[in-house]
């Protein structure tokens, strides 16, 4: 599997990452190297082997339906949340105008 220059440009644009031509020149072979490397896994015959989701037996843990139980995952910290925003006003994030 490999990606073309057009595909890389499109993925960058979907992720809103600006990419100059010089960067694309570098990025395309880099990505293809990574894809080739991963593709080596294809050499292993996995027919009849169940897909595995984790290397250790583990199940998804669920949380109780409690508001603000743990500070790290609680609301009520607007200043923290807005601290790194390029623009924030009246408690809102400010972003370049997007209109449908």
């Amino acid at each position, binding site marked *: 599997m490999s990606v073309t220059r057009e595909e890389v440009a499109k993925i960058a644009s979907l992720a809103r990452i600006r990419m100059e031509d010089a960067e694309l020149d570098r990025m395309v072979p880099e990505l293809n190297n990574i894809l080739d490397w991963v593709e080596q896994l294809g050499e292993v015959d996995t027919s009849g082997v169940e897909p595995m989701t*984790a290397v250790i037996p583990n199940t998804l843990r*669920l949380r109780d339906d*409690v508001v603000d139980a743990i500070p790290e995952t609680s609301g009520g910290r607007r200043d923290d949340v807005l601290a790194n925003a390029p623009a924030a006003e009246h408690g809102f994030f400010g972003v370049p105008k997007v209109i449908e």
Partner: protein
Amino acid sequence: MTSYTIQGATGEWEVVIGLEVHAQVTSNAKLFSGASTAFGAEPNTQVSLVDAAMPGMLPVPNRECIRQAVRTGMAIEAQINKWSRFDRKNYFYADLPQGYQISQLYHPIVGEGQLVIEADEKAGIPEDKVIGIERIHVEQDAGKLMHDQHPTMSYVDLNRTGIALMEIVSKPDMTSPAEAGAYVRKLRSILRYVGSCDGNMEQGSMRADVNVSVRKVGSSELGTRTETKNVNSVRFVMAVIEQEARRQVDLIEDGGSVVQETRLYDPDRNETRSMRSKEDAHDYRYFPDPDLLPLELEDSFIEECRASLPELPDAKRQRYENELGLTPYNARELTAEVETFGRFETLLSATASQIGKPEAKVATQVANWALSVAPGVMKSLGDEADPANATAQAQAKILAMQDKGEISGGQAKEIYEHVLRSGDDPEAIADEKGLKQVSDTGAIEAAIDEIIAANADKVEEYRGGKDKLFGFFVGQTMKAMQGKANPAVVNQILKDKLG
């Protein structure tokens, strides 16, 4: 059999409709964080570091949201998938800080189910119809954008970001705006019975994406569909279908073709228009979310979900008809909304115990009272009525007096008016205001004897076969008794005396 068709220049067209309903799950905290879901808070005050997608945060699913999705699946008779998984749906937008929505594309938690929309002759639904449901999956809601607060910026409020949604995807089984409207209403009713979504469309707790395509009547091929996003009322869902079907027919007949695209509905102009800005947004590059293990449901969890389900709308309606002997109309009206049947069942139980009869014996009387008499009185009083006075106990007492023949229907209304104004005891009101009817046979007999003596000619005519005159005697008697005689007693005595 399609009853809804569109007459075009080249013939008749029919419409194929599928709906994706997004229902906000009723829970205290968000799907993957502990931030509150309460509506109407100050902007960004209910946003955790998880919801804001700060680096290093990991999502942990809220058990209650999973439970509500499973219970909803059971309520639509759907397959519950004991193994499901979360996927990332990647797109870039200012209301989605993660850059992807955590959703379930490949392995949804709920598989195929169905619901029944009831026949409604007037609306053009000739008989009950089963509408298939493809799946329900759980996903995150996005934030809210405000465009009109600043000249060059849009404002973003992430309070809604990360609240759990159920996306309920129907099969393309609907063929008219009326069917789609009935489907949304029925789904809303089921969600509210189950308690998994408050169904508040004004606050956006429930919104629909409407998929519409058209084809020539008799054709079995599906046409190209469009998807109109975020339609937030039953009326608008129906309007979108009408507008979009007409637009597609005109387009095709003018030699064009329908483009598969996302559209928006503009209620002010009553038209849909293309959302060009999202053109390449469809390339979602879904993949399993590496932050979340597969969701595996224990049998005990599933059993608990099943055991906690309430009686559902269809079952309740049938029970009202079969066991309580209500008319189909009354049964349907009473079971449509959670609040309505709640009030009815409380009043029914209070009335039955007040009268000392089984519920089935008084259900019709209570249903008529609850559906037409009581709301009528409440409405006629307007602001003078204090709804807090409309207790089940007071209404049950009035119904009991009426059942015993102590008061007439008219007097029941009058007493209820006083109750709503003052909150006083209905029996005390009846005594004080003299709002009681006479069942004393002696007084009624005396009045009737006088009337018979004074109208010998009419008595002759009646006995000669002019049955209609019976009404005249009833009227005269009621007049003589100043309207306070028990009509059943009057009828009986008149029949005996007139022979």
